C-alpha cells in the first residue's frame, strides 16, 4: 500500500475542479495547471525511486484487497510513462499560454487539459480492466471537448467523426470486457493473468484477445487509423501536440499491458497478428507521410508510423524488442510533441500549411529551423539523438524473433520518415525568404521555450540513454515475467 500511487490522478482532477469554480481567473488557471503538472512530475519521480528500491507499488482503493476492490498499480513501465506525460504536458501548457487565445482559455481550456491528464495517468496506473475503460472515457470525453473547443467549422466536422469512432470502440471495449468477465469471472489484471494461465488460452480466449486488440488498435491508430489524420489536424497546435504525444500512446500502453500480462500464451497467433498490423501500419503511414504536401498531414502520418514501429517491438515479444519499444515509446512521446509544436509554429508564422507556399524561414527564425532539424533527425533515429537506441533494440528484437520482414519494414519506413520530414525542412526553411518580419501572421515570442525544453530532452535522452537504462531494464523485466506484477498486486497467498 502506497498513497503516492494515486497522486498523479488526484492532483490534476482536484486542480481542474478548482479551476472550474474560478472561471474568470485565467492567471490562476495558468498557475494551477503548471503547479499541478510539476506536482505530478515530482510525485512520480519519488515513486520511481521507490519502485527501484522496493519493487512494484500498489494501492488497493478503500482497503479492499486485490481481486475484489479496484487496485492502482505503479510498475516501472507506468511510472516512466506518467513522468514523460507530465514533462510533455508541461511543455504543451507553456506553448498554450502564448498561442491558445483568450476565448478558449475562458471556456475551460485548462480544466479540460487537467481532466485529459487525469484520464491518461489513470489509464497508465490502473490495475483493473474495467477501470481502464473508465479512465479511457475520462480521457476521451475531455478530448472530445478539446478537439471541438473553439467551434470552427472544420473542428466541428472532424470532431463528429472522432467522437463516433471512439464511442463505437468504447462499446466494443465493453463487449470484450463482458465476454472476458463471463469466461474468467474477474477484472483485475493480475487475477486475470492467473485465471487465464490456469484454464489455458484456448480459441475462445484468443478471440476475446483479438477483440481487445481491435479496441486498442482503434485508440492507438494501429492499422485502424483512418480517423486519425483528419481529426489530429483540426484542433489548435497545443491540443494537437498533446493528442499526438499522449492519446495514441495510451492505446499502445494498453496493448503492451494486456498482451504481456494476460494474453501472452499464444504469441504465434496474437503477437504475430500485432506484428502484421504493425508492418502494414508503418507502410501505409510512411506512404501517407511521403505523399502529402501539407505540414499537418505529414506530421499526423508520422504519428501512425511511430505507432507501428513501437508495436513492432512488442510483437517480437523478446527482451530486446520490449526494451526497444519502451525506449521508443518515451522518445516518441517527447519528439512527437516537439515536432507538432514546431510544425504548428510554422503554420502560425506563415498562416498556411501548404508546403509549396512556404520557403526560407531560417533567415528570420534560425532557432526554430535548427530545432526542427534536430527533431527531424531524432524522429528518424540518427545518432546521437534519442530515436536511435529504440530503433536498434526494436530491429534486433524483431530479427531475434525471426520476423525479418518486420524489422526490414521498420528500417525502410525510417528512411521514408526522414524524407518526409526533411521535405518540410528543405521546403520550409531553405530557399528564398518570401515573408518579411512584418508580413508574418504571428510571432514566436514565448513559443520557443517549450520547444527548446523538448529539444534538450531528446538530445539528453540520446546521449544519456545509459542513464535511464536501469529503469527501462526493470520495466522490461516486469513485462517479460508477469509473476512480479501478480505477486505485487495479489500478495503471495494466491500465487502457486
Amino acid at each position: 500500500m502506497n498513497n503516492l500511487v494515486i497522486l498523479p490522478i488526484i492532483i490534476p482532477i482536484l486542480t481542474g475542479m478548482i479551476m472550474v469554480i474560478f472561471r474568470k481567473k485565467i492567471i490562476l488557471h495558468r498557475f494551477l495547471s503548471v503547479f499541478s503538472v510539476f506536482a505530478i512530475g515530482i510525485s512520480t519521480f519519488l515513486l520511481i525511486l521507490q519502485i527501484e528500491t522496493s519493487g512494484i507499488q500498489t494501492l488497493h482503493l478503500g482497503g479492499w484487497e486485490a481481486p475484489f476492490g479496484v487496485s492502482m498499480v505503479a510498475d516501472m513501465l507506468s511510472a516512466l510513462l506518467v513522468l514523460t506525460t507530465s514533462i510533455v504536458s508541461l511543455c504543451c501548457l507553456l506553448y498554450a499560454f502564448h498561442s491558445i487565445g483568450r476565448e478558449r482559455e475562458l471556456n475551460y481550456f485548462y480544466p479540460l487539459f487537467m481532466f485529459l491528464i487525469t484520464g491518461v495517468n489513470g489509464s497508465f496506473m490502473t490495475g483493473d480492466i474495467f477501470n481502464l475503460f473508465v479512465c479511457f472515457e475520462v480521457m476521451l470525453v475531455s478530448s472530445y471537448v478539446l478537439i471541438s473547443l473553439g467551434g470552427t467549422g472544420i473542428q466541428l466536422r472532424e470532431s463528429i467523426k472522432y467522437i463516433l469512432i471512439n464511442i463505437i470502440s468504447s462499446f466494443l471495449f465493453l463487449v470484450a470486457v463482458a465476454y472476458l468477465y463471463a469466461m474468467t469471472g474477474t477484472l483485475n489484471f493480475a487475477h486475470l493473468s492467473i485465471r487465464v494461465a490456469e484454464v489455458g488460452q484456448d480459441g475462445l480466449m484468443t478471440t476475446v484477445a483479438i477483440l481487445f486488440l481491435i479496441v486498442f488498435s482503434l485508440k492507438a491508430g494501429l492499422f485502424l487509423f483512418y480517423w486519425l489524420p483528419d481529426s489530429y489536424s483540426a484542433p489548435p497546435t497545443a491540443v494537437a501536440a498533446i493528442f499526438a504525444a499522449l492519446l495514441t500512446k495510451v492505446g499502445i500502453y494498453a496493448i503492451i499491458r494486456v498482451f504481456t500480462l494476460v494474453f501472452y500464451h499464444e504469441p504465434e497467433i496474437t503477437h504475430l497478428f500485432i506484428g502484421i498490423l504493425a508492418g502494414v501500419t508503418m507502410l501505409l503511414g510512411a506512404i501517407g507521410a511521403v505523399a502529402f504536401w501539407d505540414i499537418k498531414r505529414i506530421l499526423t502520418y508520422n504519428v501512425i508510423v511511430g505507432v507501428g514501429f513501437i508495436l513492432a517491438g512488442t510483437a517480437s515479444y523478446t527482451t530486446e524488442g520490449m526494451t526497444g519499444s519502451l525506449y521508443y515509446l518515451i522518445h516518441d512521446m517527447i519528439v512527437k510533441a516537439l515536432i507538432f509544436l514546431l510544425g504548428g509554429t510554422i503554420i502560425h508564422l506563415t498562416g498556411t500549411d501548404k508546403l509549396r507556399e512556404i520557403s526560407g524561414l531560417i533567415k528570420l527564425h534560425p532557432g526554430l529551423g535548427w530545432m526542427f532539424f534536430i527533431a527531424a533527425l531524432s524522429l528518424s533515429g540518427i545518432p546521437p539523438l534519442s530515436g536511435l537506441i529504440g530503433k536498434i533494440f526494436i530491429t534486433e528484437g524483431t530479427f531475434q524473433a525471426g520476423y525479418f520482414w518486420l524489422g526490414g519494414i521498420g528500417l525502410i519506413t525510417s528512411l521514408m520518415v526522414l524524407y518526409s520530414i526533411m521535405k518540410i525542412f528543405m521546403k520550409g526553411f531553405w530557399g528564398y525568404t518570401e515573408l518579411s518580419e512584418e508580413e508574418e501572421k504571428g510571432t514566436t515570442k514565448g513559443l520557443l521555450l517549450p520547444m527548446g525544453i523538448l529539444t534538450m530532452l531528446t538530445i539528453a535522452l540520446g546521449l544519456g540513454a545509459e542513464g535511464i537504462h536501469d529503469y527501462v531494464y526493470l520495466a522490461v523485466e516486469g513485462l517479460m515475467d508477469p509473476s512480479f506484477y501478480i505477486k505485487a498486486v495479489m500478495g503471495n497467498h494466491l500465487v502457486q
Partner: protein
Amino acid sequence: MSILVGILFAIGIYLILTKTLLRIILGTSILGHGVNLLIITMGGLKKGGPPLLGIKNLTYADSLPQALLLTAIVINFATTALFLVLSYRAYKVLGTDDTEQLRGVENE
C-alpha cells in the same frame, strides 16, 4: 436475452450506417443499450439475495456486472448528451446534417 442483444446490435449498426446525424446518434444509443444488456447477460443471471454479510441465503446475486452496467450507463448518457449538443452545433455552423456533405474533401 442474447437474441434481444443481437436485434439491438443490428438496429444500432443499421442506424449508424445511415446518412443523417440524428439517426447515427440514436444508433449509438441503441447500440449502447445492446451492450448494457450483453454485460448483464454475460455476468450470468443469478437469482438470490444481496451479497452482504449477515444475510443468510443459499445463493447470492453477482453484484459486479450491475456495478459495471451502472458505470457504463452513466458514461453512455454523458457521451450521448455531448454528441447531441455537438451535432446540433455542427448543423448550425455547417448547415447540413448529411454525412455525405461532412466529408471535407472540398478544401484539399
